[in-house]
């Protein structure tokens, strides 16, 4: 789908988007209501017990740590923490649900009424046609310095529930149920603590949705509540989207989009859905309330089930557990456990380390990257934070991208990067040499100092040593010296080249230039 088609649709229609984001709490060692370990994959049905298999007579016992993590997540997103809350049973039949009900929360979630501030810059700004290129009329604030804007998205609630098992359909295509001859169920995942965050329908563009989800992920990672792997399904984003003609206040009929397994999918699926709904309305048709499945390969959504098939979940209070009564002091003690969150981190990088906003934002958004950066800066010194950042966002990012790996999997450690920056900043090697060393250390895992040593590429910055070479070059080329002194200053390049050759490329060009200029004019 062409980008300009979305822009054209958004000229005439306003999209109203709300997200439902499920995050598995992978920080706990054990499942939500039993002692089975929380992990990904593994031999099917090996991390199970009577409780998470829903055997007759088994009872759930709530995992205190998972509740604490949920409260922390709520505190990190400005939610109110309920002093009185409760689990409910959400009832429907499906083979991946051992009890045929899910222990979830209904009208008394742990967290509600939160806020998340999202910044949009770059290409995504254009999707907010009502802002006229980032200048806010109402609502979102313009961010003057880079043409972006800032908007606040409400968080309706964050509640805690148990994850289901996993169905494996055999005999159909791509593991889907259509055409399958039979299905298998793996309950390893069943009972994993799952946080569900529901946003207010405050999101207006696919880009805002993507930024919201990315921001949330960076907060969850900073908290350490989850590994937030969209690929492995520990973070799953569903979107509710409807459109209405600009100027109208009544909400349109929504569709719910599922199976968006990356931030790009989230953006593209919502964009597709907005255009699809606009096409329907333009043709005089109605949007049908239904759940739709995003196919990232075909780049389209298809109907999964309609509202008529929607369940009556028959929620009622979970009688196997007593309600929770939280002491405000306990909530305060959890608040003290909150780590530095991405926004605060970015501000600190800008004020204390003098990073540009863009770089500070990139480094602080990814928790693993921020940790790497801070470790490297701790070794290299705060004054060298900028070159550390440049290496990380430049060569290192390009390398990871090319190899398709994550930062922790790279051979490059914070200490190695700090050492490399030190070599350059101390004038031991040139920038050009540093790039070679970087490539070498990323491939071999050797320390940059050792590489420089082994290659004999140590840069000579010693003024006296350079002076003696320069003296020799000047003596060997009296004609050129005379010409230079007569005004042909362009000959400086000739002398630099000659000195460099003499020093087999290991002279510090900056120092050579200084010495040459001084001795030639002397």
């Amino acid at each position: 789908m062409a980008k300009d088609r979305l822009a054209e649709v958004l000229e005439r229609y306003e999209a109203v988007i709300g997200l439902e984001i499920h995050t598995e709490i992978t920080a706990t060692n054990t499942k939500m209501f039993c002692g089975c370990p929380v992990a990904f994959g593994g031999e099917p049905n090996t991390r199970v017990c009577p409780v998470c298999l829903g055997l007759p007579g088994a009872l759930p016992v709530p995992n205190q740590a998972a509740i604490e993590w949920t409260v922390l997540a709520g505190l990190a997103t400005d939610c109110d923490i309920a002093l009185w809350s409760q689990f409910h049973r959400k009832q429907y039949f499906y083979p991946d649900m051992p009890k045929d009900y899910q222990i979830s929360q209904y009208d008394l979630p742990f967290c509600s009424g939160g806020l998340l501030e999202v910044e949009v810059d770059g290409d995504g700004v254009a999707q907010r046609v009502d802002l006229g290129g980032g200048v806010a009329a109402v609502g979102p604030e313009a961010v003057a310095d880079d043409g972006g804007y800032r908007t606040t998205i409400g968080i309706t609630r964050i509640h805690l529930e148990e994850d289901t098992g996993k169905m494996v359909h055999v005999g159909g295509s791509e593991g889907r149920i259509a055409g399958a001859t039979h299905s298998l169920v793996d309950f390893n995942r069943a009972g994993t603590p799952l946080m569900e965050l529901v946003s207010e329908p405050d999101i207006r563009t696919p880009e805002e949705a993507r930024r919201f989800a990315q921001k949330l992920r960076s907060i969850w990672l900073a908290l350490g509540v989850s590994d937030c792997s969209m690929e492995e399904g520990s973070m799953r984003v569903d979107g509710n989207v409807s459109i209405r003609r600009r100027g109208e206040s009544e909400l349109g009929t929504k569709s719910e989009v599922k199976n968006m397994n990356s931030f790009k999918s989230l953006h593209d699926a919502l964009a597709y859905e907005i255009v699809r709904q606009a096409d329907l309305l333009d043709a005089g048709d109605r949007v049908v309330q239904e759940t739709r499945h995003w196919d990232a390969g075909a780049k389209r959504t298809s109907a999964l089930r309609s509202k008529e098939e929607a369940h009556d979940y028959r929620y009622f209070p979970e009688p196997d557990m007593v309600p929770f009564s939280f002491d405000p002091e306990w909530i305060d003690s959890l608040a003290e456990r909150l780590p530095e969150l991405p926004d605060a981190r970015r501000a600190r990088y800008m004020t204390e380390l003098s990073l540009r906003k863009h770089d500070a934002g990139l480094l602080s958004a990814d928790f693993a990257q921020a940790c790497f950066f801070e470790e490297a800066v701790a070794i290299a010194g705060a004054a060298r934070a900028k070159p550390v950042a440049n290496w990380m966002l430049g060569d290192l990012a390009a390398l990871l991208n090319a190899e398709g790996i994550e930062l922790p999997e790279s051979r490059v450690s914070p200490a190695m990067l700090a050492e490399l920056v030190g070599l350059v900043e101390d004038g031991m090697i040139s920038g050009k040499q540093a790039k070679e060393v970087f490539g070498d250390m990323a491939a071999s895992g050797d320390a940059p100092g050792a590489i420089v040593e082994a290659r004999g590429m140590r840069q000579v910055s010693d003024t006296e040593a350079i002076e003696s070479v320069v003296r020799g070059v000047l003596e060997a080329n009296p004609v050129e010296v005379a010409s230079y002194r007569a005004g042909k200053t362009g000959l400086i390049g000739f002398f630099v080249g000659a000195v460099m050759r003499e020093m087999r490329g290991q002279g510090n060009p900056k120092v050579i230039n200084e010495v040459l200029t001084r001795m030639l004019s002397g």
Partner: protein
Amino acid sequence: MSTIDLSALTAREVRRGIASGDFSAREVAESAYARIEALDGEVHAFLQLTPELAFAAADRVDRARAAGEELPPLAGVPAGIKDNMNLIGTRTTCASRILGNYESVYDCTAVSRLLEAGALPIGKCNMDEFAFGSSTENSAYGPTRNPWDLERVPGGSSGGSAACVAAGMASISLGSDTGGSIRQPGALTGTVGLKPTYGRVSRYGVVAFGSSLDQIGPFGKTVDDVALALEAISGADVMDATSSVEPVDPYSEALGRGAQGLRVGIVSDMLAMEGCGEEIRRVVNSSAETFAALGAEVGEVELPSAQHGLAAYYIIGPAEASSNLARFDGIRYGRRVPDADDVLDLYMRSRAEGFGPETIRRIMLGTYALSAGYYDAYYGQAQKARTRIIQDFRAAFERFDVLLTPSTPEVAFRFGEKSDPYTMYLNDYYTIPVNLAGNCAVSVPSGLCTTAGMPMGLQIIGDYFAESTLLRAAAAFEEATHFEPVPPLVRALTGTEGGE
């Protein structure tokens, strides 16, 4: 063949006999199975006998005694276990076709505690399917018959657990009580049946019916035996989040202190219930006189909201049951139709064929009561009634230590006599409010009814976690009445005399 008459011995006496070498635990187990051999063809208290488990346990007791070790409190005491409690090495069918082949893969906490205390697991006891009923007529495997009159029901749902103690096939047994399922069969078979305070005994491993109402409890021939069993099975359990950390008193030590100074309240408005038999009502009044004669302060109290108990219970119980029974879907275990077209067909036919009519009725009731648009009118209202009932009990226990009602409005009825569900449900009129409030209560035999010759039961209700006071009152009453009922069937077999 050994000749120990288990009807003539209490659980305490069985243990003492083993400890002093009068007989071995193995002989006790043999005696239990001999009695079962003689009578259970007619009574049908057991769905499954577990001699391997029982004799292994008996041999452990006998070895311990031979080694001079101190025997645990229920050493060698033969016990029946209701078939809704998990025990490895047994099927746990809940008397349902849907779990007909279900083998337990873990142990129910209360059962393993009973066995740790030395009890011998004789077998799994018959019941109404999933504990839905008051007669065991709803068992998918045929009813249990009342040892007092084989034409009559033993009560339910723990009818097998009651009957096996009444017939001397076991000294004690475990039942579960959601609306009277221990106390009502206790009353109908002349046994002592205790429903502990909600949270007193772990529910882990008992197949749930109404999670907020269910409680495991013991049957015995005497209050003392029931107290011994309660001590063994009570206490906090990390596997049950609703189990209480309230300390477990030495319940049996509280017995024998009499009723002097106890404040005993007759629940006068409940006693006036229309369907209550005249003789049963009289016995409650004479029981109050017995307490007064023992030095108790007797008065009257009303529980005005208790009349709504039945209606509230038949919303809340089925609502929870409809949810708890959802898991029996044919996917992971239990009965599954072999030729399902798709998953929906598999669910619907496995359940339709696996569940009996009363189970289906309760699931339908509960599903309806929780459905969108009906929740407030049914479940919401029922919870309000429940709160009122709790308040009534709280107020009553400010004035009294224990309350008295009949256990049932009438004695054991004949098979098929109660053909419509509502008249059957009325049998639990006196017991249900106690489950809704969560209090403890016990049914103690109060005499034989002169017309039918069948046992009657007095229900004594105690405050939360006041089992010591409750059992003390029950023991005082038991001692004062000297009523030790032995069914004619057993008398015919053993030649023992009933009564004093």
